């Protein structure tokens, strides 16, 4: 008996289940049709992103407020380990001590925040949506339209928002370190250099500028898309695994096998996902540091 069949018996097909789970709780109450629509906002992503930021800020702030040079407690020790890790990584990439005063806290923020947002994947895939369905229904709305996505980093708006911010910071440092003139000069002379022949120099200038544009765009897009892709795929796989459990039709052999398969697969994927969650958070932070480091160096 297929998962689809089983789900269908409960009134929802697998496709509908997945589609429902992939729909945001947004300001238009359904799936966004246009690829880009600035009038729409995903409440769920913004809510969880802000909530996790607030929790992380509070914990770190409490630790920081009571931080002492004496023997640290466990929480302080954990935060200190993260801080030391970020300081080490930042020192390796950015050689300006002045810039590190901003970039190192930036790295810490990114790592902790992205880690927490990724870690939302560890909650059972139906937990928050079902709770939300209850609240939404109790509030007098149609529970079938209670959409909720709990993993902010599986929303491309969140990841691209962060990578765009990183791009802005890179541009800021490009101007700050090299000056407007120096940076403009670099834009038309790197990576292919220039020529003494004015015609060739102009052509090379266009080519260089195009390359620089491509570089910035591709860095930013790959930065955001990498995190989004990993987390989206992770979330989707959790949904697919959950479908096995949804194939329950009673105490019969296929149902029990599906149930066991669900448990085993979900456990295995969750354990593997611990690695993905931490690794993607670290990669996002490292790439941020590397890009800002590149903004400090001439080609």
């Amino acid at each position, binding site marked *: 008996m297929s998962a689809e069949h089983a789900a269908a018996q409960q009134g929802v097909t697998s496709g509908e289940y997945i589609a429902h789970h992939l729909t945001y709780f947004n300001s238009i109450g359904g799936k966004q049709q246009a690829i880009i629509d600035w009038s729409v906002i995903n409440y769920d992503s913004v809510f969880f992103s802000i909530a996790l930021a607030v929790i992380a800020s509070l914990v770190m702030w409490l630790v920081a407020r009571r931080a002492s040079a004496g023997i640290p407690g466990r929480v302080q020790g954990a935060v200190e380990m993260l801080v030391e890790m970020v300081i080490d990584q930042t020192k390796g990439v950015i050689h300006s001590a002045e810039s590190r*005063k901003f970039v190192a806290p930036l790295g810490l923020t990114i790592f902790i925040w992205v880690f927490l947002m990724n870690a939302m994947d560890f909650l059972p895939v139906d937990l928050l949506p079902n709770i939300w369905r209850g609240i939404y229904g109790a509030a007098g709305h149609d529970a079938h339209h209670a959409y909720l996505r709990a993993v902010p980093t599986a929303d491309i708006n969140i990841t691209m928002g962060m990578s765009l*911010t990183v791009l802005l910071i890179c541009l800021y440092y490009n101007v700050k370190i090299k000056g407007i003139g120096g940076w403009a000069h670099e834009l038309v002379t790197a990576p292919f250099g220039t020529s003494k022949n004015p015609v060739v120099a102009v052509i090379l200038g266009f080519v260089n500028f195009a390359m620089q544009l491509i570089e910035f765009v591709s860095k930013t897009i790959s930065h955001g898309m990498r995190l989004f892709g990993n987390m989206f795929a992770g979330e989707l796989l959790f949904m697919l695994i959950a479908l096995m459990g949804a194939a329950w039709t009673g105490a019969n052999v296929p149902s029990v096998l599906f149930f066991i398969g669900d448990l085993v697969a979900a456990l295995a994927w969750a354990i593997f996902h611990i690695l993905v969650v931490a690794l993607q958070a670290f990669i996002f932070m490292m790439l941020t540091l590397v890009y800002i480091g590149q903004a400090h160096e001439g080609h």
Partner: protein
Amino acid sequence: MNLNATLIAQVVVFLIFVLFTKKFVWPPIVKALDERADKIKEGLTAADKAKTDLVLAEKRVGEELRKARESAANVRGSAEKQAAGIVEEARAEAAKIVADARKAAESEAQTVLQRVKEDLRGQVAALAVAGAEQILRREIDAKAHAELLANLKQELN
């Protein structure tokens, strides 16, 4: 995969979060870390210093011990010398006393001998005079011959 205003919201939240971390979280933690590093450095320096001090103190103790031993040896040496001196002095004094005593005894003996000799001489002279009187009863007048007898006595000395 649709872009919308969430992106802009995220940019704003991100910047606020970063500034919060930079302003309120980062400085105290880094300060605590630096202070702890300083403390540890100080502790290590103090430990090193204590070690050096201990070595110095041990050296000084050794030095003091050596000095004390030396001075004890000196005291003993001088005491022995002094004792030897005292013994020597006493011996010399004793020898002197003995010599004096011997001298005194000798001189006394000499005096006694002299007196005895004198007595004997007197008696011999008297005997000689008596003998001569017996022989020359009549001829010899003691008064007239006193000078002669005195000369005789003198020769017997």
